């Protein structure tokens, strides 16, 4: 059975969903232990144990540092003989996965939407060319380092021992250091973790109408996204951009409002389980990938849709 190290994420003592995903995937593929590095990291140990973690390595550090995180994890893999390292394809996972692989003189595969064992190799499937093709591949060197697309893999319960071991994370020798950080605070669920995402495109016509998207999202407890056109026009914050030059999301339900469905946008939301499109142009490409499509003016659809949702959800 493959010996797997799942990399989790924790900040301010709050465990992120990504930690449950990497641990669950690790448990499915072999025996799993989890490493949590961040502020208040110890607080997450019991939680990841519920998803099968035998040992939980805990590294306390106040400020994120990619070089230090990567060195601590690579040392752990070498010292304990892990065969596979699974990270989330999050901001942190992107920043440290390639560094970890290089320190271990091995290869890395990013952003797996499917993952399975094939003998002693982890077989990965992932989209390439903006989702216009998929590729299957393996790391043929050892150990194997992979990142998995957030929200695209099931979380499973499975009791693990959860034995806590402390590790040292030291940023003293790092070449690049974070000297300032400003949180982009938002009350809404983060886009990459959200089960439902409501997203607005050029069809909303102007910044004064973006609240329509936000109101719909708030009724559903959803994340809020936008297309590049909306972001470039300054109608909402750039962090909300979904697509090739923005974030990739993989929610259970994606509601595209006034979005035509350019290939660059589809690259960021094509792996959503269900897609709803509301657009008055019946020829919009978004309808080709939609589970449900409403061909109508969004300004006529959204008001009754909000009322119907409120009634259905008891809000």
């Amino acid at each position, binding site marked *: 059975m493959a010996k797997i190290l799942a990399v989790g994420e924790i900040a301010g003592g709050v465990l992120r969903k990504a930690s449950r995903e990497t641990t669950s995937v690790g448990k499915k593929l072999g025996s799993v232990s989890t490493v949590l590095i961040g502020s208040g990291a110890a607080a997450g140990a019991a939680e990841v144990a519920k998803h099968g973690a035998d040992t939980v390595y805990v590294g306390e550090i106040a400020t994120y540092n990619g070089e230090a995180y990567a060195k601590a994890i690579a040392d752990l893999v070498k010292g304990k003989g892990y065969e596979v390292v699974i990270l989330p394809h999050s901001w942190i996972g992107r920043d440290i996965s390639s560094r970890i692989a290089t320190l271990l003189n091995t290869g890395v595969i990013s952003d797996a939407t499917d993952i399975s064992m094939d003998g002693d190799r982890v077989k990965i499937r992932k989209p390439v060319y903006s989702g216009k093709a998929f590729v299957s591949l393996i790391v043929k060197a050892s150990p194997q380092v992979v990142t998995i697309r957030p929200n695209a893999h099931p979380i499973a319960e499975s009791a693990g021992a959860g034995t806590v071991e402390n590790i040292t994370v030291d940023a003293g020798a790092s070449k690049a250091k974070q000297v300032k950080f400003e949180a982009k605070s938002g009350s809404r669920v983060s886009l990459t973790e959200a089960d439902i995402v409501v997203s607005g495109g050029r069809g909303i016509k102007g910044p004064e109408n973006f609240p329509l998207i936000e109101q719909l999202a708030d009724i559903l407890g959803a994340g809020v996204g936008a297309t590049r056109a909306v972001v470039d026009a300054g109608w909402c914050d750039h962090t909300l951009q979904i697509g090739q030059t923005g974030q990739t999301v993989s929610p259970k339900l994606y509601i595209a409002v006034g979005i035509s469905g350019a290939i660059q946008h589809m690259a960021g939301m094509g792996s959503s389980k269900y897609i709803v499109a509301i657009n008055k142009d019946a020829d919009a490409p978004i309808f080709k990938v939609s589970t449900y499509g409403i*061909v109508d003016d969004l300004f006529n659809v959204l008001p009754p849709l909000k009322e119907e949702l409120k009634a259905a959800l008891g809000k």
Partner: protein
Amino acid sequence: MNTLVLIKQVPDTEAKINVAAGKISEAGIKWTISPYDEIALEEAIRMKEKSGGTVTALAVGDDSVQNALRSAFAMGADNAIHVKVDGYQMLDSFGIAKAIASAIEGADYKVILAGRQGSDSDNGQVPLILATLKGWGCVSFAKKVEVSGDKAVIECEADGGEAVYESSLPVVITANAGLNEPRYPSLKGIMASKKKPIDSKPVDIGAETKIEVLGFEPPPARPAGRTIDGADAAAKAKELVKSLREEIKAI
């Protein structure tokens, strides 16, 4: 100060991608510099215009990637290095980064810029692997870069917010959207680009390959969708909520 820009030649984002027998068919594909790499190149040219030095563009691949290097000349690069590898594989980041490290051995670049990810693989691995191989700092997703003296100050998108990093030099920096708006090449630049010499360096990366590609396939077809019909918008909204709740149980 001399700057190196890593550029990748990729299919145009609008290109149709055909898969046949587990491989990508390259027939009819229009190739271009990956969009984020254009932003990296623009940044390097602006740094040169402000503080002097040279801009060197580097591309890895077969002879066809010289087209991307000519485009970099047209935008304003001074020098171009073609790291020539046979059997180039766009997903083999470790081999590519090793080849780049070998090609720039002994050169004195203080800043290495690259796009945050190639628009073909969307991996974003090569800059980080190169920095780690060389023991340099690497700051990803930059939206503002200032180099002064022996350090770089980089504002970037970070986990859950925005951060400022300081790094010693050399440093590898990856460009995010919003760092700048790349210029169009001038006619003079395009004419001059045809005559500039490209430094071609053959590198054998066969032994450094860490990834095995099992095969490509077309994207899985999505299950057929349904148009929600109704007398008016309100009726359609009602039917949609019913379907979301009862059919797919998504809310």
